[in-house]
């Protein structure tokens, strides 16, 4: 079966071609049919750029300089505009972070969903009204007939994100790409939107690539997780095994800095330093300057270690008990 999305050694850069700013360094990632992959990492790690560049939506000045991206077997890197237009919305539905700004404030939401249908099925906006109401009902918008006539500002953030998801699902795409779909929402609403995404993927055997920095979201909806740092994927594997036995020290740090209710009152773990910005990524292992287990070997690019289910990019995989946690405990004492 064809994978929904196959990113193979993708390189992305921006700015002056003679002095480029490298944003993504050889990312390879596969979203298998009917599976959900979470792509996590801090701001500036290149996770959004990876998704947007794959679909040719990264904007002017952002170039793919190498690699290949196939959606349902269709090559997207170097593809002509016609192919990209057919894939966007048709094969791949996209949901953006901020549901207010991703809807046109001047258009009724029904018209915007109808537009997404119309772009792939032709006809007039009005002739797709039944489909619009069906989509709104599917993503759990109450009174869809009436709501179709509302403008974005008349809806709450949660409803707006449901509308954005309805737009993405308009043409029954095989793959849903969601860029931080819950980040801009209240916590209570996040759970509801998560349910919508879950039913759109699990219940309909649809694949999804979900970009987020919310590890809880990944644990709830994703089958596999890829951790990105400084333009590279540093660890990839099934959610259960990565969360229980993280191989890369960065993954361990991320997991340790997550609040856990059951742990009672304790200081949250925190990683030292800040994530490096594009253009100032250290040579060798980019995480080495912040890494609690770094050694001299980390000045060299780390090897890729594959386990039976995933892989990581580290000189010292799996070593050292969750150091960030222990350091945090020392701080609390």
């Amino acid at each position, binding site marked *: 079966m064809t994978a929904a999305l196959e990113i193979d050694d993708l390189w992305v850069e921006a700015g002056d071609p003679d002095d480029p700013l490298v944003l993504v360094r050889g990312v390879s990632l596969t979203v298998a049919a009917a599976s959900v992959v979470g792509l996590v990492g801090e701001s500036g790690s290149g996770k959004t750029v990876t998704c947007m560049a794959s*679909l040719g*939506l990264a*904007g*002017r000045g952002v170039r793919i300089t190498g690699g290949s991206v196939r959606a349902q077997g269709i090559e997207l890197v170097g593809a002509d505009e016609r192919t990209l237009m057919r894939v966007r*919305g048709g094969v791949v539905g996209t949901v953006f972070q901020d549901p207010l700004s991703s809807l046109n404030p001047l258009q009724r939401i029904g018209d*915007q969903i109808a*537009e997404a249908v119309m772009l792939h099925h032709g006809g007039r906006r009005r002739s797709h009204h039944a489909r619009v109401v069906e989509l709104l009902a599917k993503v759990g918008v109450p009174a869809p007939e009436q709501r179709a006539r509302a403008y974005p500002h008349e809806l709450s953030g949660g409803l707006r994100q449901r509308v954005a998801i309805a737009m993405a699902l308009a043409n029954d795409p095989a793959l849903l790409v969601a860029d931080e779909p819950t980040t801009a929402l209240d916590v209570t609403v996040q759970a509801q939107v998560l349910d919508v995404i879950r039913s759109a993927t699990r219940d309909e055997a649809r694949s999804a690539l979900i970009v987020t920095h919310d590890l809880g979201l990944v644990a709830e909806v994703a089958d596999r997780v890829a951790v990105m740092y400084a333009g590279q994927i540093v660890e990839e594997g099934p959610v259960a095994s990565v969360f229980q036995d993280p191989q890369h020290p960065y993954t361990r740090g991320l997991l340790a800095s997550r609040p856990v209710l059951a742990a009672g009152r304790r200081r949250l773990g925190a990683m030292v330093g800040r994530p490096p910005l594009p253009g100032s990524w250290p040579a060798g292992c980019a995480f080495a300057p912040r890494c609690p287990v770094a050694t001299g070997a980390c000045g060299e690019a780390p090897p890729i270690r594959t386990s039976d289910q995933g892989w990581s990019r580290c000189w010292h995989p799996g070593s050292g008990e969750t150091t960030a946690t222990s350091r945090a405990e020392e701080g609390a004492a």
Partner: protein
Amino acid sequence: MRRRGIDLRLWVPLGVLVLTIVACFVGPMLLGPEAGQQALGERLAPPAWLPGAIDGRPLGTDAFGRDMLTRTLEGGQVSLQVGFGAATGAVLVGMVLGLVAGYWGGWCDRVIMAGADIWLAFPFLVIALAAVAVVGSDIPVLIVLLTLGGWVLPTRVTRTIALRVRSEDYVVAAAGAGASDLYLVRRHVLPQVLPANLVVWSFTVGALVVIEGALSFLGLGVKPPTASWGNIIADGTPYLQTAWWIVAWPALMIVVTVICANALGNALRGRWNAGADVIDKEVVP
């Protein structure tokens, strides 16, 4: 901004402009063709309230005995056609160029904006003089000429807004739904540049009515006996000390039209706050 009732700042100038247009195009028909004929026995008659006035010539007559009311209204037909026509042309040209420059960017943008800068560096009246000398000066020529005189402002305003809108999330989202560039421009960018361009259009009408007046005053406008506000003023200048009314009425009409066009532009800008910052930045005094 939006108060209960009628917004006078918008409706007064709009009303006066509409009234002016209707008067100029309908008025001469009501007054009859006789009033515009030369009548040497009735030369330089003063307006109705001054001694020596002639019945049926409320605003006086000119040096050929023609009724000033009729002449002023007929002159308005030319000035308003050229002013409104050229402003409309300038805004249409400017929107197309501005959308191309702002949305597609790259070399299109550089060529168009460099063209705009170079164009502004030329003294427009000199170019107009040369053009009129070569191709003559009927109304269509004047409209094209003044379109060239006014395209830079709407181009810049449109470009600036398009540049901002094209990277809005909802445009990227529509692209992500499979929309083509042309569709995105038409459906998502164009509606955002329209209000600002209506404001620019209004200001441009005012500016171009003045320029048309200047051209006609210099003898570069429509040829007499066809009247235009500018050439009536030119004809009346030698009589300024004895028959001030020949110059006064068309001059007054130019002033009223320009003030109303600018006031309308201001009111529209206040009403649709969107784009106001762009317009303020681009209208260099």
